[in-house]
């Protein structure tokens, strides 16, 4: 080959390569076939069906549609017909379906042995529980965290039949029951936010974690149409610019746990300006409020400037349909004071029966269960403290739909109670901190897998009732706890009057006057009936509980449902939405403003130790003006020691810092006014 031939050949080869499709085809094939590995998950090729469900993991009870493919739940969509969902999908409802196959799920009944848990059959589990309960008669206790379900009636009837004690987990529903009881009412507090033209949230994080937040958010959206003028004014008063405050028309900085005092301060201004109420106990209320709660006093106590308080009072008085919604900034620990004070203020504004209504509670259908108010009467905190300290005995302690070993103040004592109780039974769907400590786990099926119901969460506008039926195949060998307990009751020789939980739900529907077939199809029942009973205002003006602890800063726990709730850890599908300002690496981030950081001698990014009356935690500091001066904001939801790889060991649990104080007059523990000391770690 001479030079010329070589060059000709080379040029030909180059041109040929340029023209031939072979390299491009090979590249294309390579990209296709290297994505076609057998271990890549394949999506199903089947039709999608939608079925209605009311979310039981979402505390706001929002109704959604579940997308079902081949018996598996694959997604959720909004349900515009549901009064609590109004077409939206809350963070927790969106994540709920993804949790069906969460790595944290308990897959079958488990019995604790010396070497760990071992799987047992349902028959064995029921036999063991029946034996333990019959031996423990008189010293049986049960704690339930389900604020909306009829399952509580079965549990209460069973426990009452064994002369035991039944407790509900503390929260807004318990606070509301206690507030109404003290004011001579009964039922549930309903907020007609749909028709309000001025809404004042006192502490209550009502667009994220308080009350019917999904519905509230939708109403907020309707009153604040994009690109147009708002038809209602929303004001938030609290220590942190949280998810509610950030979109409200005005954020008023108020110290943690200040709701009651601010409400009474506003009442004082209104009464000074001549507001009266034709209500029982008004004279006593007026006298007590006049003795304290002058704007200057309220400013000192709560940080709300006197001029701001006066302006809000003027705006409330001028509004046609004002509405005041009060509560704890993190959904628990406010006791009954904030609600009573806000009800007093709503009465003064002439809104009782208008923006605020008292609607009937759920009628009891299981004999021996007692009334709803009776079930909420006892405070679980002193009981669990007593068990931890060995004062109260609990031969069998059962826990349903709650995680007291994680989500209560004085967390270590609550966890210790689980260890100290002679025999602990968890009905959790997940291997949570409480289940991990239990002697026996009898896993509950999840919402989409079981029959269950949902009656009027705290703060709904009207009485509502939804029934859930199994929509998908059970992912694991789990059962509906209500059915399990009916079976256990039968083994104990107790007749609760029903063979299955479904029968209980049918009886409830009949009692409410709702159509069973319509409920079963996922249609929610609503009722406009409201009580006309007058509330007694006399107990509304009691002073708020003092600060708990001697720390230099007020602690503002913050709840965000993408991080989790007190009973559910961060769902896998929400893990990506955690912000750097909440979690840095695996360290919890606490927020304070620049002035507080200077006062405390800490810098942004620094690791600090927070010392509260309940315990300590380390965290990283993020300086943000979203927190008022003198306050440190800590996210709740991190620091799990159980669950799965998505949440275990991520951050620290801020519940540890909190301690509960007694409020003898209301009989409910309070922990919304904790103080902490901060030091560089």
């Amino acid at each position, binding site marked *: 080959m001479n030079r010329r031939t070589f060059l000709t050949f080379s040029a030909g080869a180059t041109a040929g390569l340029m023209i031939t499709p072979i390299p491009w085809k090979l*590249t*294309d094939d390579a*990209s*296709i076939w*290297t*994505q*076609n590995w057998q271990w*890549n*998950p394949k*999506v199903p090729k089947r039709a*999608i069906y939608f079925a209605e469900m009311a979310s039981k993991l979402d505390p706001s009870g929002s109704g959604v549609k579940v*997308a079902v493919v081949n018996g598996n*739940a*694959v997604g*959720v969509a*909004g349900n515009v017909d549901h009064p609590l969902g109004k077409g*939206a*999908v809350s*963070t927790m409802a*969106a*994540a709920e*379906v*993804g949790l069906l*196959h*969460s*790595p944290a799920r308990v897959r079958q009944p488990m019995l604790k042995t010396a070497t760990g848990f071992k799987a047992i059959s349902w028959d064995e589990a029921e036999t063991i529980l029946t034996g333990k309960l019959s031996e423990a008669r008189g010293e049986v206790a049960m704690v339930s965290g389900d604020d909306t379900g009829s399952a509580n009636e079965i549990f209460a009837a069973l426990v009452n039949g064994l002369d035991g004690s039944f407790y509900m987990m503390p929260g807004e529903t318990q606070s509301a029951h206690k507030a109404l009881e003290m004011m001579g009412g009964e039922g549930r507090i309903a907020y007609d936010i749909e028709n309000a033209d001025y809404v004042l949230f006192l502490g209550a994080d009502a*667009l*994220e974690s308080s009350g019917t*937040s*999904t519905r509230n958010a*939708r109403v*907020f*959206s309707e009153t*604040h149409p*994009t*690109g147009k003028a708002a038809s209602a004014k929303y004001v938030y008063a609290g220590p942190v*610019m949280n*998810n509610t405050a*950030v*979109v409200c028309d005005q954020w008023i*900085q108020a110290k943690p746990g200040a709701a009651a005092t601010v409400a009474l301060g506003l009442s004082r201004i209104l009464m000074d300006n001549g507001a009266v109420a034709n209500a029982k106990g008004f004279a006593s209320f007026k006298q007590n409020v006049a003795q304290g709660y002058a704007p200057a006093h309220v400013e000192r106590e709560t940080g709300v400037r006197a001029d701001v308080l006066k302006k809000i009072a003027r705006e409330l008085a001028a509004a046609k349909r004002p509405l005041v919604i009060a509560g704890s900034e993190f959904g628990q620990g406010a006791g009954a004071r904030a609600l009573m004070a806000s009800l007093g203020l709503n009465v003064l504004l002439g809104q009782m029966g208008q923006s605020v209504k008292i609607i009937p509670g759920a009628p009891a259908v299981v004999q021996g269960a007692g009334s709803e108010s009776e079930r909420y009467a006892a405070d679980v905190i002193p009981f669990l403290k007593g068990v931890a300290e060995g004062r109260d005995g609990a031969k069998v302690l059962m826990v349903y739909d709650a995680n007291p070993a994680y989500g209560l103040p004085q967390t270590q004592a609550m966890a210790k109670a689980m260890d100290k109780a002679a025999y602990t039974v968890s009905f959790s769907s997940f291997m949570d901190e409480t289940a991990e400590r239990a002697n026996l786990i009898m896993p509950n099926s999840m919402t989409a897998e079981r029959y269950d119901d949902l009656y009027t969460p705290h703060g709904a506008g009207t009485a509502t009732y939804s029934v859930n039926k199994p929509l998908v195949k059970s*992912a694991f060998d789990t059962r509906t706890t209500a059915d399990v307990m009916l079976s256990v009751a039968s083994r104990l020789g107790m007749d609760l009057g029903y063979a299955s939980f479904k029968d209980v739900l049918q009886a409830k529907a009949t009692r409410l006057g709702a159509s069973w077939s319509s409920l079963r199809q996922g249609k929610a029942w609503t009722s406009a009936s409201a009580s006309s009973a007058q509330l007694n205002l006399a107990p509304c003006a009691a002073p708020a509980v003092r600060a708990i602890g001697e720390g230099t800063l007020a602690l503002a726990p913050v709840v965000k449902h993408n991080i989790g709730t007190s009973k559910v850890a961060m*769902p*896998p*599908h*929400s*893990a*990506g*939405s955690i*912000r750097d300002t909440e*979690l*840095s690496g*695996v360290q919890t981030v606490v927020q304070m*403003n*620049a002035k507080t950081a200077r006062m405390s001698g800490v810098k942004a990014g620094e690791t600090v130790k927070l010392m509260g009356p309940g315990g300590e935690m380390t965290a990283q500091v993020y300086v*943000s*003006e979203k927190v008022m001066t003198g306050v440190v904001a800590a996210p709740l939801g991190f620091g799990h020691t159980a669950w799965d*790889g*998505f949440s275990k060991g*991520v951050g620290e649990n801020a519940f540890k810092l909190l301690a509960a104080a007694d409020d003898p007059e209301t009989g409910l523990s309070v922990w919304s006014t904790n103080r902490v000391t901060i030091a560089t770690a």
Partner: protein
Amino acid sequence: MAGFKEFNIRWSMVVDIDKCTGCGACMTACNKENNIAPQEEAKARLESKGFPTRFKKIEWLTIYELSNGKQGGDHDTAFLPRPCMQCGMPSCVSVCPAIATDKNEEGGIVSQIYPRCFGCRYCMASCPYHARVFNWDQPIFPEGMEKQLTPNVSVRSRGVVEKCNFCHHRLMYAKDAARVAGEDPEKLADGAYMPACAEACPTGAISFGDVKNPEHEVHELAKSPYAFRLLERLGTDPQVYYISKREWVRKQGDNYLESEGAAAHGGNGGGQHG
């Protein structure tokens, strides 16, 4: 730059920043809808922050937190959800050597064809919005969770770039539904096609529709004097609009000089669509 096609339909999102609480419901709904694998190794990634781990996060929609930078009572915060902008002049399309991403379908959604992508990531480098993400790892679902994959969206392999496509499968469903109902699939009613994030949003911060269709709400919203688009002066012509009555928020939507006001859309007010 060569011009891109003009379409009769322009699917657009209008995000009212003043209504976004930053709750993350849109992100969770997006992850579930689009079969984005929950990253089990999320914790390890969190522990080892910094490059490249923080860029390994797979999410199609990111919520940014904005601050006006002021202290005390003057401080203000806003949340800005950022999906793919589905640009009218998409810089990612021009640079793709494999034609794995294209803007060629009525409606203007920028496509991403996974089997064609060989992972060069030029598109990621060119996207000024950081809307694209790369699969550094195999998509691994916790055991059993693969049974819950939606039939609508294929699971992407390692080595592939992915991004938000306005839940394009929902557009296909909406068109099918229109055909079944005997309606014109190219004239969908307002609300007939809605991405998962817009549907989920509890505060209704995300509106969606055809910005060129006067019967769709977004048509008017995008013309609002408070409307703006991100980095609009780059000329990418995004199909995602934002609305905020707060000037400081609008100013953060682009790089303004100190002497400039946040004059949305070059000062003429409203979107220059159509």
